[in-house]
């Protein structure tokens, strides 16, 4: 299986996450979009690390996976806060992070 296969899969995953971030107004789906984008990035790092025999890429993939969980943790906290303010957590009406 060539490297291009994993690159195309990662690009498609990234596009799905991007579409979710742009089209959905519910905060939960925006978080899901960010998670999918980080997963795509990690997969691409791991694929390049494998095909070019560079363990640095796998370490970066691990960092990306951890960063994705970091995004999700903060995102879910904000989502829970939004849900306490509004019945439907609509990002267009959100003022949670306003100073």
């Amino acid at each position, binding site marked *: *299986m*060539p*490297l*291009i296969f*994993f690159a*195309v*899969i990662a*690009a498609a*995953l*990234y*596009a*799905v*996450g991007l*579409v979710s971030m*742009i*089209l*959905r*107004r*519910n905060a*939960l*789906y925006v978080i*899901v979009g960010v*998670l*999918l984008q980080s*997963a795509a990035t*990690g*997969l691409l790092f*791991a*694929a390049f*690390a*494998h*095909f*070019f*025999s560079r*363990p*640095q890429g*796998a*370490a970066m*993939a*691990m*960092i990306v*996976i*951890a*960063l*994705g*969980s*970091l995004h*999700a*943790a903060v995102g*879910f*906290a904000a*989502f*829970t*806060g939004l*849900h*306490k*303010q509004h019945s*439907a957590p609509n990002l*267009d009406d959100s003022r*949670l992070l306003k100073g």
Partner: protein
Amino acid sequence: MGGEIVNLMPDSSHNASALVVVALACGSLVSSIVAITRRTALATSLSMLAASFCLAGLYAALAWHFLGAIQIMLWGGALLAFFVFNVISLNRDDTEPVALRGIVTRTVSLLAAFLTLFLVVRLVLVAPWPDAASTQAADEGTGSTAVLGRTMFGELGVPVELLACGLLLAVVGALSLTRVASAEKD
């Protein structure tokens, strides 16, 4: 191993292994599409769980078994537990799933996203990347936890420590966000 997908099933042929990799890739794509198109958060969380397992399988196919284990532990364990906890306590249908306000801006953004994707795929297709035959053979032990650990705590020590600080800040930020929301509600 260099450039070749690791055979997931040692007794089977290479074609069967490639078929498993294709199935895992298709599974991750379908699961992610299902995750963003469902109206209930529970279906979304279960689809993300399926996508997580498929991605872990892809990591394993790339000989990074440790990454697959981390993927399942982080997403399938902690993240999905938190996800499902939120879903159980806050679950409700999405009343207005697709944003129609600011439709022009969103349309332009969507077109820009697809243009970016097109350019990336075009770059992927025309780039003179090495094929499986020309890639350098991997060192013995590449993909092992020892190699990954030496890399992470050796030359990538600073980014890893910065990531640890970021995780700590994320915990503090998440706590403060929920406290601000509770105070505003009161």
